């Protein structure tokens, strides 16, 4: 009886490991392959007898130089850093108080506001991007300025706005789980609302704040539809990649295209490796609780 149990346990373990390893391979192999492919010459991609598994015949690091020069990746890189940082700062400054107020206070119209922010989740940025562009363009014309388009600050404001719904939803979910007692104690100690929020409640929400930062960092960094539409010379890295891919697609230089993919992928991977502990911990502590 016991022996049989042991055998099923071993078989179970083998199956589980097989599944885990299969999934791991299916992730690591393609990602590693893109790195390898980025060093290949074009002739190694198309034509008879090309083997996708073969190592590059020589390290065509020239691909990276071309990608950097052609797509002005350096400039776009800097813009991406600025826009992402600014967007995150704006997002937190605006979303935290709103989430806090919505989850810890009772007031008239709270339900409507909650529904309104929820509804924002369903608005797909892909189809409101043109109305946004037209609005900014009209603002320019009305005021006779060139301020609203191709402006990194405005782009950041739009990024922050577009993720407010999600962030408020996530943060207020976390605030709800905190015991009521903290605030009452703070009020008794003579703290005002603002002080209570800033000095006591927000620090307690650190894990979920971290979660918001990490999620939104990725979406801001990778976003290209809004950036492409409203930006021009001050565009971001994802737009640079899209431009590069459009050019290399008409010219079909696979090696250069993959080099561009790697350039965009690397900062995210490095950051991920650095913060993955906090990320998973952040989710453990502050993860979504329904």
């Amino acid at each position: 009886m016991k022996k049989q149990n042991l055998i099923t346990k071993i078989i179970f373990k083998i199956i589980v490991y097989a599944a885990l390893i299969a999934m791991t391979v299916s992730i690591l192999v393609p990602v590693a392959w893109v790195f390898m492919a980025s060093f290949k010459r074009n002739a190694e991609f198309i034509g008879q007898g090309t083997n996708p598994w073969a190592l590059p015949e020589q390290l065509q690091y020239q691909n990276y130089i071309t990608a950097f020069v052609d797509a002005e990746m350096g400039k776009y890189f800097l813009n991406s850093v600025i826009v992402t940082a600014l967007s995150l700062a704006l997002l937190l400054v605006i979303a935290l108080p709103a989430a806090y107020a919505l989850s810890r206070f009772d007031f008239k119209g709270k339900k409507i506001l909650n529904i309104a922010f929820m509804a924002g989740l369903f608005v797909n940025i892909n189809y409101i991007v043109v109305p946004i562009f037209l609005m900014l363009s009209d603002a320019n014309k009305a005021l006779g300025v060139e301020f609203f388009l191709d402006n990194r600050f405005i782009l950041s404001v739009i990024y922050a706005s577009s993720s407010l719904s999600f962030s408020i939803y996530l943060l207020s979910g976390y605030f709800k789980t905190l015991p009521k007692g903290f605030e009452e104690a703070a009020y008794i100690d003579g703290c005002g609302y603002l002080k209570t929020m800033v000095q006591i409640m927000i620090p307690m929400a650190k894990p979920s704040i971290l979660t918001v930062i990490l999620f939104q960092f990725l979406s801001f960094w990778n976003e290209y539809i809004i950036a492409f539409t409203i930006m021009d010379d001050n565009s971001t890295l994802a737009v640079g990649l899209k431009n590069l891919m459009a050019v290399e697609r008409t010219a079909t230089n696979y090696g250069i295209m993959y080099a561009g993919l790697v350039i965009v992928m690397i900062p995210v991977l490095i950051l991920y490796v650095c913060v993955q502990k906090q990320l998973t911990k952040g989710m453990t502590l502050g993860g979504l609780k329904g």
Partner: protein
Amino acid sequence: MKKKMVKKLISVSLVSVMAVSMLAACGGGSSNSDEGGASSEGDSNVLKVAAFEGGNGAEIWEKITAAFEEETGCEVELTLSSELDQVLTKNIQNGDIPDIVYYNLGQASGFTETMLKEEAVADISDVFDDELKGKMLDGILDGTAAQPYGDGKIYLAPIFYTQTGFWYNANLVGEGKEYAVPTTWDEMFELGQQAKADGRALFTYPQPGYFDATIYAMLAQAGGTDFYNKALTYDANTWTSDEGRKVLDTVAELVSSDNIWADTVSNANTDGGFKINQQAVIDGEALFMPNGSWVVGEMANSTPADYEWGVMGVPKWSADEDQAVYTFTEQMWIPADAANIDLAKEFIKFMYSDTVVDLCLANKTTNAETGEESDSPIVVPVKGAADKLPDGVIKSSFQTGDDVVAVTGTWATTAPIEGLDMKGSVYGPIDSISNGAMTVDEWQKQLVDVWEQCANAME
């Protein structure tokens, strides 16, 4: 990639008498310059040229605009982009309207078609005076590719052209080679049997959209010019007639699993996969494909040195028919709200000058990977331009002769139709037919429906 190139006035001493008259045109366009909106920087003496950066490369536009500046003393602001449709949509919405646009009909974005549907393209019939008309290839201005509404007025200037047909692997096909060049469909399909026995496929296509030129040529071949022109303006009998049905049946046989290279449909539907289909011809896995002369430059990177291209007209149904050859033109047009319409018209005229003809013939493209330059001549549709090409396959692709009937035009422009994707519904089914997922009857029925919709939207 967006490049803006603004060049300052060239030395005045160069201005010739002719250019002085053009200088007058530079100033002449200023009357409605306020329409340029908030972002129209500078004055209206600047000609804003927006050009699609495609297989021809960017350099040719820099040269042409520089030559125009030199000739006229005007300033040219050049916007080059491989996603010109998106850039211009943005700019025009923003009130920043270019004076002249090089963007073809038949692109996936449908940008030029949309501008036509919105009646936002200027009538340029007066550019083509008798002198210019006499200089240009006969018939090139007659079709719907120049007169999109079919009303006798020219809106689109055909600035480049190439003749299309089936391109093939001339190492395998040709006189004294493994396979003979077919002239009729019967010979073509016999060749398919022979190729199949050797483990090769008869045919592949880059993407279903490449069938446009083939189907135009086949319609003209099957029914003659009148039938063809009626088909372009959505005659109800186009596809139910014997001629129309013959075209569909032949295409279906051509792409059936007996003849098609097996990976064709997969590649046609993945990003950049069209090139793999083209490579299949170079590698001898498939013998023929529909294409244009740009394919030579496009595939230069992965073409072995000993490889030779061949090109032939789309096969005929019987050997004694005339050969219909579809002429693909690339178009340039002026937005109706452009600030400098007069100067823009001068620019279009300039496109047919000897200067530009020679610049285009001498065009080279640069390989981004190796930095190597390769010849990539562009031909302007004026008489004699094609004769100046160096001997070779590109020259031979410009077929002339007594039995050659040149065919131009595209499906006529209609009022916008909700839910209709012209390219998708006409050529898309070719993928499905190749897979066996759709029958010719179903394709025919779909085309009849589309033609009815379009005919209704023509009025």
